[in-house]
């Protein structure tokens, strides 16, 4: 299977958020702004989003990398690197 692209990774993030915060409309998310405040995730919710991402993508996100997930754009960049894809086409 080829590495997921940006769109697939974004969809995975929306899927993970949707399980924790189903009221969120992905269209309302501003990709360059801090994500957690926008979609109202507390620390516990955020951990659960990470767990969901692990289930969906099969990658472990160590705690020291949580800062990489500050915004949607940064999270996609980070996951792309972790899943072995290229950042081309951004």
């Amino acid at each position, binding site marked *: 299977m080829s590495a997921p692209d940006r769109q697939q990774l974004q969809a995975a993030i929306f899927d993970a958020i*949707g*399980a924790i*915060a*189903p*009221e*969120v409309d992905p269209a309302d998310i501003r990709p360059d702004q*801090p994500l*957690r*405040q926008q979609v*109202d*995730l*507390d*620390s*516990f*919710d*955020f*951990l*659960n989003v990470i767990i969901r991402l692990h289930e969906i993508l099969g990658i472990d996100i*160590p*705690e*020291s*990398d*949580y*800062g990489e997930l500050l915004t949607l754009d940064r999270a996609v960049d980070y996951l792309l690197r972790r899943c072995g894809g290229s950042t081309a086409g951004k």
Partner: protein
Amino acid sequence: MIPEVISKQPAAGRYPPNLRDYAAACAQFSWADARAALSGLPDGGLNIAYEAVDRHAAGSRATHVALRWLGQDGTRHDYTYADLRDLSSRFANVLRGLGCGPGSRVFVLAGRIPELYVSVLGTLKSGGVSCTLFSAFGPEPIHTRLEIGAADVLVTTESLYRKKVAGLRERLPRLRQVLLVGDRDAETAVADTLDFRKMLAAASADFQVERTSPDDPALLHFTSGTTGKPKGAVHVHGAVVAHHVTGQLALDLHPEDVFWCTADPGWVTGMSYGIISPLTNGVTSIVDEGDFDAERWYSILRQEQVSVWYTAPTAVRMMMKGGTAAVRRHEFPALRFIASVGEPLNPQAVLWGIEAFGLPIHDNWWQTETGGIMIANYAAMAIKPGSMGRPLPGVEAAVVHQTAEGRIAVCRPGEEGELALRAGWPSMFRGYLGNGERYRKCFVDGWYLSGDLARQDDDGYVWFVGRADDVIKSSGHLIGPFEVESALTEHPAVAEAGVIGKPDPVQFETVKAFVALKQGHEPSEALRRELLGFARKRLGAAVAPKEIDFLPALPHTRSGKIMRRLLKARELGLPEGDTSTLEGTA
């Protein structure tokens, strides 16, 4: 192996502990002496903000950094005591200009931005009552609190206003003014609001602090009970005596400390110890706008050379999950004291502090109603991991039970009972707003009954056992099940809801809801998600349930109340206990 006692080395070095000998400190302590350590207003009276800011700004500490603000985006801004005096005076003048005299209720709904601190201190200077709301509350908790608190003015940010407050304005006829802090530097232009920064800039930086008395109301903090709406606990300016001295005794604050309280001012810890106590003690206080992020926190501890750190068990347990190695990649030469409050700190977490930071974590205990730390583990006192410590000097705490005659009897060592405090300490709450009866019920025989069950050992150490009621302790905050149930039952498919605290290794308890549906509605994953989103939209992440289960019906008492205790026992697979009041039993 967890040791039963962690002994301390005798005091040495630059910072000999403020409290060196517990028994001697208790014997010598008097609240009058503690009051004498403060300045008082020049013409008599006592004002929290004067003790926190103006008296330092008028003296040799004027140029000392009072607040070091760390923005989420990496910006950093220092505010000296003189800066804080000027800014808070400007805000006090803004309030006067809006016609807000002493006693006006000024609410703040914001993240940890500098304007929050300026608003709180300016309100206190003006003689107004300050109430900070957690920015993760959804519209319903915000509305309830603004309404019960009879807010005159609300300070919030443009984005929070648009998202959570604008839709409530019609239901808040008493709210006179809303001041918006722009999300960017540009001026805000939103109907029916004023621009905070513009008004602050136009106001004078000279203000004579209102001559408040120690008994004048200063702070309003909401807390949750088992039934009914949240309770607005009122605190007075005299509470500053306790804020100040507990900072010295329980947190061991020394003048040159860099102190970091990680709590949000939307909760009482973030007010008493995130704003007031470090400032009255003249130290430098770190304010981090960002959310919990272990790596970021380690960097802050290191870079800002934090010496005293006050945090919460949930954060400690999340850091533990990340492992000791992540901490040890950093060095913290300045760090010398760590304390924690919110829920009982498990023994493993106390010891993890030693493993990771080379320092044990000192648990302490207090509540919204107590206004300040009441029971603590001190820098120079041996720790019994798992115990909240011993009562502060000047605080009489006991584990008690009520006799058949309705009197209070102190339990024997080791016996479980309700944790109680002899009424009369300076930061004791003075009322629940508009609810005198509920307030009176908290006191029996001259004791304040905390609602926490505990036991005290032969050495006087207090151990938390549980709650005496159904209130949920989650991530250091109390959540009232009724508030959550009410929001869920607003959904057209929900017949009724019962909400419990489900034990959780990180949050202590998480909010779990059981829902019975109305006829014509069937349980489904789609409906479960809909209800979750419905509750989150109304309540916000801080209060909304994390889990929802469907049940065909909820257990009731014969008088019709939902038996949350039974829901909890079933959830945990525990014995159901006394079900004699259960509806349908003989």
